[in-house]
């Protein structure tokens, strides 16, 4: 049984992290590579880098960033943002990303998931699913949460897994940014409906939210951005509390603690 994973997410624009980062001692808070290495040293289990520029002309810059990150990090990381083709995926994997995420392009063309899984293996294909609760239940939204797709959340997650997604990254747009907790209920419905791991995202504000999404939500991993960037929650403390609540985590080693104290 693998440990439940803690995954900081870094939004990157033009090669720089965009959300405010309130770490002391960082040489350059906007440098995604330095920030990623810092999280790794703190005991993050994986990282996600999302290219929020995602315009075609800036893709080479993101691939270079991925390559630089891969040379420094000794933990796995996922790259995503605007991915719509096998070629784009190949570039990022060859640059050293362990996994990639697809979102809108997969909803518009579900066969893309099948093609990517066949070409690169399910283990590196994360399908990101953005959802909102509407009158008819949880619905999938695309284009960064701007467009309703008409697809039901559970139905789409099940199809994505069927087509070869290795993981589902589930973000409740209703919860994202609220710091009021993850959408544990729908996370549980999807975790029970798909055979692959579900990464919960959106809404983390307190340590108890992580406990809920693992215990009630059945998530295999939890992703967050601001609580880590602003230092509201430290990963060593988070992991200690999870362990104290009987949730299996990879503990932050003494060695990593010392690095952090530096």
């Amino acid at each position, binding site marked *: 049984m693998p*440990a439940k994973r803690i995954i900081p997410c870094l939004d990157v624009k033009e090669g720089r992290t965009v959300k405010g980062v309130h770490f002391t001692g960082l040489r350059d808070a906007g440098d995604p590579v330095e920030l990623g290495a810092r999280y790794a040293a703190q005991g993050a289990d994986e990282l996600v880098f999302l290219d929020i520029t995602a315009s075609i002309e800036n893709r080479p810059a993101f691939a270079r960033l991925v390559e630089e990150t*891969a040379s420094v990090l*000794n933990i796995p990381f996922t790259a995503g943002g605007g991915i719509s083709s096998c070629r784009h995926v*190949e570039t990022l994997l*060859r640059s*050293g990303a362990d996994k990639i995420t697809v979102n809108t392009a997969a909803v518009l063309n579900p066969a893309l998931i099948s093609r990517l899984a066949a*070409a690169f293996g399910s283990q590196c294909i994360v399908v990101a699913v953005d959802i909102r609760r509407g009158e008819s239940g949880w619905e999938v939204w695309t284009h960064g949460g701007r467009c309703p797709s008409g697809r039901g959340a559970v139905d789409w997650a099940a199809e994505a897994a069927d087509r070869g997604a*290795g993981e589902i990254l589930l973000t409740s747009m209703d919860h994202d940014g609220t710091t009021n907790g993850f959408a544990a209920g729908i996370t549980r419905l999807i975790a029970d409906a798909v055979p692959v791991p579900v990464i919960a995202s959106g809404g983390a504000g307190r340590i108890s939210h992580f406990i809920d999404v693992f215990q009630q939500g059945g998530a295999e991993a939890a992703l967050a951005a601001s609580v880590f960037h602003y230092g509201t929650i430290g990963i060593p403390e988070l992991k200690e509390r999870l362990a104290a609540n009987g949730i299996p985590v*990879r503990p932050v080693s003494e060695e990593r603690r010392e690095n952090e104290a530096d």
Partner: protein
Amino acid sequence: MNIVIIEYNGGNTRSVQFALQRIGFPKTVISDDPTVILQADRVIFPGVGEASSAMRRLRSLRIDRIIPDLKQPVLGICLGMQLLCSGSAEGETPCLGIFPDMVRRFPADKKVPHIGWARIRHADSPLFRGIAQDEWFYFVHSYCVPVNPGTSSVCRHGVAFSAAMQKDNYTGCQFHPEKSGSAGERFLTNFIKGDV
């Protein structure tokens, strides 16, 4: 030290190369050329993706013929380890047959793929020198090799499976040492420098 990483299916060769850089071997070679592979002091055989297409690719590059004859230490990582076995349930694929065992799919009662950090137990072997029992390594796989006489390290995901195997000059690891933090780097260092 001439270290060659076999390139055959566009997998995670760069990640392995970067990890070797971090542990002090900056000049590793990534190659699909049998001549280059045969001359290596250490051969690393990584791999991600699906078994039958990976075997097809190895055959088309004629690397399938040289791997069983290598005399230098060889390390198969993840799919690379699975391809060193006699066959895989993935695509009903005959593999290289260095390890006599069959690769099986995980039972469906657990989340598959098995993704994330898991603890391993290991035998007393130079490969695991300096690595504690129950140390955490990073895994990502849907198929596994059952525990067998060649198993040198065991992990569990519903069932016990081989986290590492050894036979003569061949080593396989199901985990990704290149992504397993400092323990993974120690494992790679042991493979490169150690008496394996």
